[in-house]
């Protein structure tokens, strides 16, 4: 929720959740010596799910954006990087703001429904805000150079990751300090967006590597649909570090970031954002095939607009995870975690409308315990069963079980199926909010608000053909209950209150693949189709239509071309198609991002990058600004 907006506009972002994905290495380092040179290329060196397994056997719809994709896309922000994932809906509404969802429910701003069913983790640190379960995308940034990969899982991940992993998990993993040694200065002057970044790192000792970085940028305002400036330009400096210690059986990573920013508003003073975080990840190898991990972090965020309210939020998180094998056919991971969230909200008081909270200060505690067993039934068939129990401060204990089956039909063909349950826990925005129209209580939270629930049925295929062609197909049927709605007070009508009177299902298909056309040209493409079939529960008042849950396109498609034109020049182009949004209506559009990169020498690289090149401006979301075309020139100096 953006606090500077009028009362009808919203909250975006939070979640309570539990366990992150962190890289780990259970596969025994002792085993690889005897592998053939061909087999070595197939060893998975970091993990995808909580227990390491090769990505190609994960029984889930996973799309991985790797380091080169990120750098070569020229993406200027984390949300722009996420446009590379065909299984996400990414909609920009201002230079700083995005609505991002997987498999629907991208929100409806006018109805105060915000995308809140995605779990987003940066190196295991959850970044959705507990205030409303959505993500403040303007508060998350990572240097493109430091992204190792981004794993985008569409579908529920509640059993491992906890509440809010209802429709998807975005797991951003940064590079180890040893992978970013040396210095780099990046200058990106552009017509809409200009940035400067500086990073330096190296080995401090034989076992300790480090890096430090700084980045700042300015992005100009967009125009409103009426053609006048939306006064929504912004800038946002960020600095941070990472320290890796490889101490025998122990791997320790300490990382942190601080940032601040100022975002223009159509009227009134800037919204000022800021925050910082410190994360400690400790992994210890125990006996063969067994490991222990502890993740601790502190995360502080604040948003304030002079005279229009804001909040301060402190999050303390501690979690432990243990992986081990039981016999040679069971791979078990279990863990516990606890998160404390403290916030103070400053009410926004206006003459026409006010956004207030009762209470405005709370300390929430979210605890969880989970276990998952991956069972090898035969050489080619694996079953995974798991359960997470999460105790949230509003609705008590929620159970999130899942069962998955995968069949490795050949070394290059995998079929999988899964049934999982996940929930979105109630938040202060669902329970404590009080919106006033003048002095009248217009809309209030519901202390008995129930978790929004999903039971998902999924099936998929993943394959590699002729060594050149990869294909993933995922089909899903998500059955929802207790979705958020709005209901009047009996007889009196006002105040309206949040309720759980929508249910139904969403089904769809996601297909993506890549083709290594020649040794210098790779093509990749993705298509998604989904259909929402929702209804009101009996007795619902239906004072807002079903479109209050979200304004999602039925179809999306993307096509990406990556060319190496000789050793030193590369050219990348990304086309994307987003189908029309039904209610409120937003036309379909096609856009193109492209980048030409030239490595002048070992120390100097240049790139010309452009985004949204096909139109001067286009609309992506109802009520949002017109998204402008932009170009920038990148100079990269290594030292």
């Amino acid at each position, binding site marked *: 929720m953006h606090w500077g907006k009028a009362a009808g506009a919203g909250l975006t972002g939070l979640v309570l959740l539990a366990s992150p994905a962190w890289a780990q*290495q259970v*596969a*025994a*380092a*002792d085993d*690889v*010596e005897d*592998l*053939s*040179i*061909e087999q*070595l*290329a*197939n*060893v*998975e*060196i*970091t993990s*995808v799910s909580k227990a390491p397994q090769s*990505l190609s056997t994960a029984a889930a719809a996973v799309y*991985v954006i*790797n*380091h080169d994709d990120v750098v070569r896309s020229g993406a200027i922000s984390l949300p722009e990087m996420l446009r590379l994932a065909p299984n996400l809906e990414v909609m920009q509404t201002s230079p700083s703001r995005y609505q991002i969802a997987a498999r629907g429910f991208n929100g409806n701003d006018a109805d105060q429904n915000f995308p809140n069913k995605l779990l987003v983790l940066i190196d295991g640190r959850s970044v959705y805000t507990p205030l409303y379960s959505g993500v403040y995308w303007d508060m998350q940034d990572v240097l493109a150079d430091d992204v190792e*990969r981004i794993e985008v899982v569409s579908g529920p991940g509640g059993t491992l990751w906890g509440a809010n992993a209802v429709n998807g998990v975005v797991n951003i993993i940064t*590079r180890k300090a*040893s*992978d*970013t*040694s*040396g210095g780099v200065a990046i200058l990106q002057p552009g017509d809409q967006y200009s940035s400067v970044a500086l990073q330096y790192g*190296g*080995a*401090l*000792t*034989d*076992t*300790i*590597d480090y890096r430090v970085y700084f980045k700042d940028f300015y992005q100009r305002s967009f125009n409103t649909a009426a053609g006048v400036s939306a006064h929504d330009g912004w800038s946002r400096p960020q600095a941070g570090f990472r320290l890796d210690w*490889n*101490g*025998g*059986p122990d*791997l320790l990573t300490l990382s942190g970031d601080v940032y601040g920013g100022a975002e223009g508003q159509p009227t009134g003073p800037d919204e000022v954002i800021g925050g910082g975080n410190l994360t400690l990840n400790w992994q210890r*190898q125990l006996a063969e095939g067994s490991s222990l991990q502890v993740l601790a972090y502190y995360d502080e965020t604040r948003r304030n607009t002079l005279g229009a309210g804001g909040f301060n939020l402190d999050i303390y998180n501690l979690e432990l995870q243990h992986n081990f094998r039981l016999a040679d056919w069971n791979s078990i991971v279990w863990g516990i975690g606890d998160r404390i969230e403290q916030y103070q909200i400053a009410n926004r008081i206006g003459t026409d409308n006010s956004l207030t909270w009762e209470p405005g200060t709370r300390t929430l505690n979210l605890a969880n315990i989970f276990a998952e067993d991956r069972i090898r039934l035969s050489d080619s068939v694996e079953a995974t069963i798991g359960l997470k129990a999460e105790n949230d401060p509003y609705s008590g204990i929620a159970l999130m079980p899942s069962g998955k089956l995968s069949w490795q039909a050949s070394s290059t063909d995998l079929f999988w199926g899964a049934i999982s349950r996940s929930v979105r826990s109630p938040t202060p925005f669902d329970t404590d909010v009080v919106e006033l129209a003048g002095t009248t209580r217009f809309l209030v939270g519901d202390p008995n608000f129930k978790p929004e629930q999903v039971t998902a049925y999924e099936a998929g295929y993943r394959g590699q053909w002729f060594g050149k062609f990869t294909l993933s197909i995922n089909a899903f049927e998500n059955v929802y209950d207790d979705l958020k709605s709005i209901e009047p007070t009996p007889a009196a009508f006002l105040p309206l209150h949040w309720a759980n009177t929508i249910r139904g299902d969403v089904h769809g298909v996601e297909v993506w693949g890549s083709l290594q056309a020649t*040794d210098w040209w790779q093509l990749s493409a993705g298509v998604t189709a989904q259909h929402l079939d929702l209804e009101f529960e009996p007795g619902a008042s239906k004072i807002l239509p079903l479109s209050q849950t979200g304004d999602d396109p039925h179809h999306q498609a993307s096509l990406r071309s990556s060319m190496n034109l*000789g*050793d030193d020049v590369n050219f990348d182009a990304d086309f994307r198609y987003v189908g029309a949004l039904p209610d409120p209506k937003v036309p379909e559009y096609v856009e193109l991002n492209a980048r030409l990169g030239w490595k002048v020498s*070992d*120390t100097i690289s240049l790139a010309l990058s452009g985004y949204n090149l096909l139109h001067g401006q286009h609309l992506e979301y109802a009520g949002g600004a017109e998204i402008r075309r932009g170009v920038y020139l990148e100079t990269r100096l*290594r*030292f």
Partner: protein
Amino acid sequence: MKRRGLLLALLLGLLPGSLKAAPSLEYAVKAAYLPKFIPFITWPDGAFAGADAPFTICLLGQDRFGGKLDQAAAGLHAGDHAVQVRHLAGPDPAANCQLIFLPAGSDPALVRGTLDAMRGRPVVTVTDSGLSVHGMISFVIESNHVRFDIDDAMAGEAGLAISSKLLGLAHAVKMRGQP
């Protein structure tokens, strides 16, 4: 900074073995790769000091393998040459290396200097992933897998012949005659 690093390294050297750096899986894989490259490469006759001189893998700078490389190379032979691993603090012309590995985190100037010094000599230069300058073979991390690129042009200049099988296993190859 360098001095302190050395001091810390010495102190760590006094710790019991279990607390010394164990390699990550990534470096265990890389350590397994290095000796396995040898059978696919043909060195010119003059590359060795004598018919029974050892085949020397030189590890320049930091040892990220935590002993894994020594372990992987133990007891191996390249033709009549027994494979040995030498740990070098810096380039040493007297070391008579047949293969040099430059780890991530090395000073870029040292990497560049070493590659320049080795250019045209029958020494296979292997650079770690994460380095901006590349030797004949350079490790790359591709979607969580350790792969390698080969610069066959550079190998050709040095009189080394890399078998087509190894070229076929490479993630990317810069062929001879290519600019």
